[in-house]
């Protein structure tokens, strides 16, 4: 999320790309700042295990091709993750150059490589297929696509089931297009279909039948349905579930869901995760005069990444803390405001964060024309049908192979971690692909 963005007043007026283009000159100069540490700590911060030192070194001599193949080996979503990974929490957090001045802009260097590759059509090459139709993947998000990509790299052509009209999972349907333009993501995930993987647009309902039909199954269906607020007024016109709003803005036009709505006046977003801030910046671009994010705990407990928050705050999104939504107020079927009860911080809860305790009698309302609820998602359902052992969230898996308690059934991504990052989903998909390929090709 760190990156060379267009100035806030420019970008907040449009759904077009918020990132400024990068030049080779910049990339080489930035790469030259790299200290080339021993046992580079940045690499330990990358959950996909990209050989960062090697790709940065290649950039120093303008060898974009080598940089690209080094990154793709571990993470095929090169430009995508360059843009949307929380590098400040991952690779860049450990950069030794931080002690001198500031960390190397690893994410932006990766974005440069990925965007150059797309512009110059530098496609991955796959070996001739060795095995077909023995592996099914359920879910065409980053985890499922990564499994398909890396299986293809091992010569295995998989069947990929996706319930939506477009593959790409949350990055396609949820992450706003100004952070991740559709054509850019489309180009990177397009390599999977170009490599021959069969994409079947169908919602899988009978996992048992699939498990019987294929030699290996990779479950990558992501999270379940969004949580409701459970307060009066949720059905009023002008009240949106964040996921629905984001998907409409991203995919409405190509799936005939309709054009994005027009907003006006003030919008209140309830939540404190990355989705809340994406919804807030989208609400600005849809025409809101003012956007307020209302969160029930304090800033310290907020799950949204600081840089992601900063991106929204720079654009003028306001933060209101320690507010518990109690009712959505309406007139003639339309929302006119949100009633909150004030809270104070209590003891830490199960998540380790301090729990918001309602303050008796302290109520306030914020008038608004739109409300967006971004309160997280339920865990995914459906996998129970395979009677798999449960983990902390979703089925329990072996962290090395991503295999569940049922041999031949693998799982990864948000489904098993309860919601993390795209790069984690890619890492899971790649790990599963490796284990599946080994199994199939060994036999």
């Amino acid at each position, binding site marked *: 999320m760190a990156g060379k963005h267009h100035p806030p007043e420019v970008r907040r007026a449009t759904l077009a790309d918020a990132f400024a283009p990068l030049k080779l000159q910049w990339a080489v100069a930035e790469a030259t700042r790299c*200290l080339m540490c021993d046992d580079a700590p940045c690499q330990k911060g990358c959950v996909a295990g990209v050989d960062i030192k090697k790709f940065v*070194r290649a950039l120093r001599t303008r*060898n974009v091709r*080598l940089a690209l193949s080094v990154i793709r080996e571990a993470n095929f979503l090169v430009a995508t993750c360059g843009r949307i990974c929380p590098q400040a929490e991952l690779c860049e957090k450990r950069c030794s*150059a931080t002690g001198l001045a500031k960390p190397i802009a690893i994410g932006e260097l990766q974005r440069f490589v990925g965007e150059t590759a797309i512009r110059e059509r530098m496609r991955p090459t796959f070996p001739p297929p060795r095995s077909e139709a023995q592996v099914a993947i359920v879910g065409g998000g980053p985890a499922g696509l990564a499994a398909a990509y890396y299986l293809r790299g091992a010569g295995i052509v998989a069947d990929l089931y996706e319930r939506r009209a477009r593959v790409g999972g949350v990055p396609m349907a949820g992450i706003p297009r100004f952070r991740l333009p559709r054509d850019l993501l489309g180009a990177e995930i397009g390599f999977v279909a170009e490599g021959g993987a069969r994409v079947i647009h169908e919602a899988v309902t009978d996992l048992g039948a699939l498990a019987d039909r294929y030699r290996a199954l990779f479950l990558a269906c992501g999270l379940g349905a969004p949580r409701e607020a459970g307060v009066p007024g949720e059905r009023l016109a002008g009240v949106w579930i964040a996921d629905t709003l984001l998907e409409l803005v991203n995919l409405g036009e190509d799936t005939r869901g309709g054009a994005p709505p027009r907003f006006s006046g003030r919008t209140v977003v309830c939540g404190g995760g990355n989705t809340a801030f994406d919804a807030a910046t989208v609400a600005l671009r849809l025409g809101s005069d003012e956007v307020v994010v209302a969160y029930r705990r304090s800033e310290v407990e907020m799950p949204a990444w600081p840089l992601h928050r900063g991106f929204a705050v720079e654009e003028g999104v306001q933060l209101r803390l320690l507010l518990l939504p109690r009712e959505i107020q309406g007139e003639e079927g339309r929302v006119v405001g949100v009633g909150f009860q004030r809270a104070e911080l209590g003891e830490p809860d199960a998540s380790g964060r301090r729990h918001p305790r309602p303050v008796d009698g302290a109520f306030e309302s914020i008038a608004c024309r739109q409300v967006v609820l971004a309160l997280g998602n339920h865990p995914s359902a459906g996998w129970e049908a395979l009677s798999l052992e449960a983990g902390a969230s979703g089925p329990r898996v072996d962290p090395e192979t991503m295999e569940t308690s049922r041999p031949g059934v693998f799982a990864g991504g948000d489904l098993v971690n309860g919601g993390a990052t795209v790069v984690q989903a890619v890492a899971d998909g790649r790990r599963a692909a490796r284990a599946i390929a080994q199994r199939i090709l060994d036999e």
Partner: protein
Amino acid sequence: MPTLQVDFLGSTLRNPFLLASAPPTNTVEMIARAFDRGWAGAVTKTIPLEKVPVRNVTPRIHSIAFAGFAEEARRVYAFGNIELVSEKHADYWMDGIARLRRDYPDRFLMASLMAEAAAEGDWVELARRAEAAGASAVELNFSCPHGGMPPHAVGAAIGQDTAIARRITRWVRAAVRCPLVVKLTAAVSDLRTLSQALALAGADAFCTINSFPVILGVDLKTHSPLPSVAGRGNVGGYTGRALKPIALRATAEVAPAGRPISGCGGITTWEDAAEFVLLGATTLQVCSAVMLEGYDIITDLCDGLLSYLEDQGAERLDDLRGRALHNVVPHASLDATARRKSSIDLETCTRCGKCAIACRDAGYQAINEAADRTPSIDEDKCDGCGLCIQVCPVWDCMVMRAV
């Protein structure tokens, strides 16, 4: 499919890159580790006979770096060293060469040798033992700027005296059948005649070049040359990026002798390597870049050079070898009518004004700055010297254009 394979002195190498005789080849284990990383060959740290005591001083390596800002990393562009030949002697090395030969039969393993100028028996013994141990070739170190094995004046003292160098080359030539390489110093007045004389004396190939004699710096408090050994210093060997232009010149000068060349001096990137090939080198030796970043740079060197072959539409390095040589001509043969003038890309220009300073105080007063700092070239005044382009901090912002 283009390949980096090269034929050198009767061996086929997977790529042209060898570790130079220097700290990266200090021990047999280190060489083995480098081979595992993909280096096509190595030259042992220079081997002395058992009877020669070698005792290094500390410290013995210093460097020059771009200081940058206080918070910026030091970036080394040259080393200076006063290190002697290997502290391990012929017994260790001959045994090690035999072991490496057995474990890595496909790698090019050269034994770097040094003995006193007059000691025919010592040179012959070293060369015979290296050949017997299985060395792919021997490399005679006629080029260490600080002698290499004090108190004897050897190394560059030999390479700077054509008669002595020729005599030793003949001795070794007569003693062994394996290929014989002479490693030269550029601190001589005429490499052309020297290399031709040594080719006639039996040298099969040349390594251009060893480090160049310098005083790297002086400590302003203690008045000691750097690196300082208890308050005193000595003329040391300049290596790394700063050495490359000298090594390129030497390579071009030795090429007419008609023997294969192992280019050496400042090779840091594949681009450097390609330049040496264009000036006639067959193999490429690297030391300082490995001192800075380790054996792993071999991937970058190979991958980059391979892409370059593809870009050039060449199948092998042989297709490019020496391509730049015929473009190195006397000044009188340059086309003085081909006029160029400077131009500025205002899109990338940062309005720093460095070009204007340079042209004002060291050029022809041809760059004007508008009130908003935008520079412009006065084409009538621009003399085309090219200085502004060199001082511009932005890549490709200023270029010379035909008029």
